C-alpha cells in the first residue's frame, strides 16, 4: 500500500468516526427508512474511498451529503427501472417468467445502460435504443424519427462515442 493510500484510509477513518452517525440520521430523516439509510451511508464512504479523495475537514458534511444525494438518485432510478422491467415481464405466464438470476442480470444491465445513456441528447439516445433494443434498421429508425438515414448514423455514432468515452462505464 502506498503512502498516499494509507493517508487516504486514515482520513476516511476519521471522516467515518466523526460523521457517520450524523449522515445516517440525515439520510434516515429524508428517506424515512432505516435500511436504505444504513445502506446509503455505507455506500457513501465506499464512494469516498474509491474516489481517492477526502474532503477538507470543514467541508466534510457538505461533501458527504452531496455524494449521498447522488446515491439516493441512483437508488431511485434503479427502483424505477426495476419496476418498469417487472411490469413488463409481469404479463408473461409464470412458466415463461425469467428466473431470479436472469432478472437480476437484466436489471443490472438496464441500470448500467441507464447511467451511460442519461447524458445523451434525446435524439441520439432514442436512435441508439431503437437500434440496439428494438433491433430496427437505420432506415426504420429514420422513418420513426422523421430524419434522414445519414442523420441516424450520426446520432448513433455520437451516442456510441459517448458510451465508449464514459470513464466509469462498463468496466466489467
Amino acid at each position, binding site marked *: 500500500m502506498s503512502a498516499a*493510500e494509507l493517508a487516504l484510509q486514515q482520513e476516511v477513518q476519521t471522516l467515518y468516526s466523526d460523521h457517520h452517525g450524523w449522515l445516517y440520521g440525515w439520510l434516515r430523516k*429524508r*428517506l*424515512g427508512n*432505516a*435500511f*436504505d439509510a*444504513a*445502506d446509503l451511508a455505507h455506500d457513501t464512504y465506499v464512494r469516498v474511498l474509491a474516489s*481517492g*479523495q*477526502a474532503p477538507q475537514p470543514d467541508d466534510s458534511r457538505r461533501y458527504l451529503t452531496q455524494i449521498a*444525494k447522488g446515491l*439516493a*438518485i441512483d437508488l*431511485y432510478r434503479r*427502483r*424505477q*427501472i*426495476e*419496476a*418498469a*422491467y*417487472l*411490469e*413488463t*415481464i*409481469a404479463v408473461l405466464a*409464470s412458466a415463461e*417468467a425469467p428466473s*431470479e438470476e436472469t*432478472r437480476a442480470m*437484466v436489471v443490472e*444491465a*438496464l441500470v448500467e*445502460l*441507464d447511467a*451511460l445513456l*442519461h447524458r445523451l441528447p434525446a435524439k441520439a439516445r*432514442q436512435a441508439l*435504443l431503437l437500434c*440496439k*433494443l*428494438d*433491433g430496427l*434498421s*437505420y432506415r426504420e429508425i429514420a422513418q420513426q424519427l422523421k430524419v434522414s438515414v445519414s442523420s441516424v*448514423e450520426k446520432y*448513433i*455514432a455520437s*451516442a*456510441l*462515442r459517448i458510451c*465508449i*468515452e464514459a*470513464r*466509469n*462505464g462498463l*468496466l*466489467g
Partner: protein
Amino acid sequence: MSAIHPFDEARPLDRAVAREAAEWLVQLHEGATAADVAACDRWRAADPEHERAWQRAQRVNAKFRVVPPGVGMPALGREVRMDRRAALKALTVLLVAGPAAGYLAYRETPWREWISGERTATGERRSLVLADGTHVDLNTATAIDVAFSATERRLILNAGEILVETGPDAHNPSASYRPFVVQTRQGRIRALGTRFVVRQESDEPATRVAVLESAVEITPAAAPQDQRVIPAGQQARFTATRIGMPEPADAHVADWSHGVLFADRMRLADFAAELSRYRTGLLRCDPAVADLRITGAFQLDNTDSILAALPDTLPVHVAYRTRYWVSIVAQEGVSR
C-alpha cells in the same frame, strides 16, 4: 490528495479514438463488406488505444444484448431529468407506497421497502421471501401488509390465511434482535423462532393460529394481560377479548400451501365452505346433504373438477345455475 486509478481500463480514451471506434461500429452494423471488416481490423491493429476503444465498444454492445427484446424500451425509453431535491422526496414516496402490489416478479423478490402490501385473488396462492429471510405463503383471498422497522418485524394480516416460517434476520441493520409479530384485528401473535399458520376468519371476528414448530405468544387486542404461549402441535382460536382452549393442531392445516385440501370424513357442508374460499361466486350446499361425509386429498387448482367428481362418490348432483352460482343438492331432488 491523490487520485488512485486501480484499473488501467479506467484511463480516459482520447475523444478522436472513441469517435473512430463509434464510426466503425456504425459502418459495420449494416451491409458491411469483407473489405470493410478488413479495414476495421487494420484500424484496430494500428494502435493499442484503437483496440482498447474497440473492446469498450464491444462491452457496450454486450450490455445491450443482455436485455431481452421488448423489455428495454419501457425501462429506458423515457428521458428522465430530475433535480436532486425532488429525487430525495420521490424516493421517500416510492418507499412508503411500495411497488405496485401484485407484480408476478415480486413474488420471490426480497423485500426492501419498509412497508408494502401483498394480496392474492380468490383461488390464487403465492409465496414470498421477506428481507429477513422469512418465508410467507399466502392462501386464497389473502391481504397482508409488511412493516419492518428498526425494532420490529411486523406483518399485518388483513384477510385470509398465511403460513409463516420466520427467518434469521441476519442482515438486520440495527444489530439488535427484532421480534417477529403477526397482527390481526383480534390481536398480536409473536413468533418465537418458528413455523405457524394464521387465519383471519371471514364470517366471525376471530383468528386461528396453528403452530407447527417451536412456539408463538398470543396477545388479544382488548385483553393484553391474557398472553398465552401456544407450543408446537397445538392450535387456538382467539378473539379481541379472549383466547380459546388450545387443542391438538390439525395435521393438514398447512396442506393448502402445497395446493391440497385434505378431508377426512369431513361434513359435506364444511367441505363446500372450505372449497368456496378458493372459488369466486356462490357455492351452496343443500341442508339435505350437508351431513354426508367426504374423504380424500383434493387439488385446489381446479375446484371445478373437484365438484364435477362429487357425484362419483356421493349421492349428490352439482347444479350450475351460472358458472358463479353452484349448488350441491341431493340426487333424487333433480329427477325430472
